[in-house]
């Protein structure tokens, strides 16, 4: 349970309304360091909206988000990326015209030091100057990151490495999802949020992805996972949270949650849609 770990992320009463609809309704959640917690729930339950609130892409109407003891409610996504929060997107948001290499390098953007001096006011101008002049320190940094990107891509076997210079739009759907995860890893995240990483993947690809997530977990990464494939959720999660119509309706170890009548009811009430392949709007 969460108390074993120092709480890394904690949400309190997090709420987001769209007009009359409460997409996220007073959600409380604690995530310990190194934990992997899954969020499941039928379509439209508010899972993606919850991710948006945690990563700063949307602001809550109510409630608070704390990350490593710091109140981060309403901070910009740029700031949160710098704090070490990385995410992937449900529909896949790779940079279509950038090569695989460049996509993943963008993931390492917050870690650029040599080319981005932290000088107030004229910092951006120095960045422009350094980008044009490219002194040895800048070139070395870029070279180091490129090597690192290759190492990250190698985690996906031969899926991405041979395509490293291809533009992302030319990749298969599954490969684009992999690029997204590689990009997130390049940030060296302290907290990783994965929004349906296996959506649109066949069983073999799903198994591969599951293996990768398990590896990341074993390496000690703290992960919040949205996933419809219950099999995978059951195997990976320390805890499962079930959402329906914005509310948290159950929380606990996978097997326990699975048998909860409220959960069965929520899924049945939505025609079991949650267990099939989803590609609805993020």
């Amino acid at each position, binding site marked *: 349970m969460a108390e074993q770990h120092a709480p890394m992320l904690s949400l309190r009463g997090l709420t987001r309304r769209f007009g009359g609809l409460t997409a996220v309704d007073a959600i409380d959640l604690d995530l310990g360091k190194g934990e992997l917690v899954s969020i499941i729930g039928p379509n439209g339950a508010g899972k993606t909206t919850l991710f948006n609130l945690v990563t700063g892409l949307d602001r809550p109407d109510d409630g608070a988000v704390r990350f490593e003891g710091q109140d981060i409610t309403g901070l910009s996504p740029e700031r949160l990326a*710098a704090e070490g929060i990385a995410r992937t997107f449900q529909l896949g948001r790779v940079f279509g*015209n950038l090569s695989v290499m460049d996509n993943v390098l*963008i993931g390492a953007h917050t870690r650029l030091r040599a080319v981005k001096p932290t000088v107030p006011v004229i910092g951006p101008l120095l960045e422009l100057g350094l*980008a044009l002049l490219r002194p040895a320190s800048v070139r070395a940094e870029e070279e180091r990151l490129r090597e690192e990107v290759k190492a990250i891509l190698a985690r996906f076997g031969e899926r991405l490495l041979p395509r490293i210079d291809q533009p992302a739009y030319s990749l298969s759907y599954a490969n684009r999802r992999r690029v997204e995860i590689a990009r997130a890893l390049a940030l060296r995240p302290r907290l990783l949020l994965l929004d349906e990483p296996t959506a649109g993947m066949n069983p073999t690809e799903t198994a591969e992805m599951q293996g990768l997530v398990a590896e990341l977990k074993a390496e000690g990464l703290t992960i919040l996972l949205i996933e419809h494939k219950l099999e995978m959720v059951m195997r990976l999660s320390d805890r499962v949270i079930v959402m329906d119509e914005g509310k948290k309706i159950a929380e606990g170890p996978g097997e326990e949650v699975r048998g909860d009548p409220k959960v069965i009811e929520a899924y049945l009430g939505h025609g079991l849609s949650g267990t099939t392949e989803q590609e609805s709007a993020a």
Partner: protein
Amino acid sequence: MSSWLDYTINGLIVGNVYALVAVGLALIFGVSRLINFAQGSIYLVGAYIGWVAVVRLHTPLPLTIIVVAAAAAMVGLIIERFGLRPLQNSVRIAPLLATIGISFVLDQLVMLTFSPNPRALPSQLPDVRFQLGGGTIGPLDLLIAGVGLTSALLLFVFLRYTKLGWAVRATAQDRDAAMQMGVDVNRVNQAVFGIAAALGGVSGMLVGMYYNQIDTAMSLQATLKGVVAEVVGGAGNVPGAVIGSLLLGLVESYGVAVFGTSYRNLFAFLLLVVVLVLRPSGLFASARQAPPEPLTGTFIAPSRPVRIPRWALLVAAAAFAVLPFFPVSSYVLQTLINAWLLGMLALSLTLVAGTMGQVSLGHAALLAIGAYTSALLSLTLAVPVGLAVIGGGLMSAALGTLLISPSFRLRGHYVSIATLAIGEIVSLVILNWESVTRGPIGISGIPPLSLFGYDLISPFSVYWFSFAVMLVLALLQGRLLGSHLGRSFRAIRDDDIAARAYGLSLNRYKSLAFIFGGFAAGVSGGIAAHLYSYINHETFNTQQSILALTVVILGGLGNVVGAIVGSVALVGLPELFRIAAEYRILIYGIVLLLLVRFRPQGLLGTI
């Protein structure tokens, strides 16, 4: 006191006219999320058809209105069918560029048919004024008010009580759902474009009668005013567009009352920029909404750039460098000098619009800032010309970036509107800030180019100078694209949400792109000022912005070599074929349209 009432009446009447344009824009935006930059051109066409009807055919007023509405509607239908429908499944930048191209083609066609000189459009109504409270009102005021109210009523009945009207509303609410329910979206688009064009055309005719003058500059003004009103009211919101229009009419009218006529447009554009910054979804939008444009999907056409071997580029550069040693006429050199100057502007625009995805329609303003700065530095402060040109580049980088920064939060079409408006603001400030810019008189006697004390007067030296400057800028830009900044710019262009989630600050990187691009454009303007020796507020106009945009699309968005090839092609080919100046702009517009339709990635491909 009485004059205030007059200004109020005037504001409401003018607002009524804007409403006819803005409602059409709102309808179109509602169903297709598209800001139709050609709306002003239809308004222009309406005004000239009105002129033909009244002056040549002597039609009675009711018939005039019907003829204008019908003819304008036809134009609208043609635009929809042949200009936009083929682009339905293209990338988002395509319809935006298409309406810009269509607008240019229509304006030029009107100009070629009727000459650019203003014409009188008599109102066909008795010239009397009635006392009303403390002010006066004429029959034309009443007619405009009447047309406005009647159109609003007809539109309301159409949208509310007809099947097609229901389909329009359904499509505006949720296009996909409407299609699933069997709504024929093409028919909806047709209806909307037809109605929008009819309203726009009638509006142009009424304005012509109101001021008893029509000319081809009306088009851009109308597009801008309509868009301002529409955005103020909330894009796609039809009643909002009406209220926004009346508000705009009043703001302008009171502004004129207090500050004088030459400030009329300034108020309109300031209103736009303020609304875009403070409430980008309009004054009447609910507090926080989903963003007005879809978040996903690429903005520009994906493509692989054509790889040109380095040696080929070197050979080409060397060939152009030694060209003056061969017996070429100074006419050829002059043409190429123009191409190099345009090349610098195109480098700037291809970075901003192509690499960064901010389709700027006000890029000529950067030329103007650079030109005025360089001219004034060398004239009034006796700064050496070489340094003055660099000063022009720096000023353009700084001021241009500062002016555009309010629009950094905007996307797609909104950026284009904002830059168009900012371009207009710059030229209005140049016109009105007489103590510095010498106002409408312009600046004459600008010293020629010189470097280290040597005047560059011969065509050879000017040729080498401009070629070398362009080459340096191109090399720098190539280096920029190869750095982490190039990839950051392109990431923001492809998906700004994902880019922010990975720590890329939009303000920071858009600023850097505009600083670099502003410098190149400012240098180009500075050099031009010293070549022309005379500049005024019209030297650098929207036509140059559109020409640069065509060059950029032709060469391939973001493509450095493409920008230069495109400049040489678009400056050189018309010269080669001796195409008369007035047809050139028409041809640029047509080239733009053909490219968007058949080769959106340009000659050398998007980078």
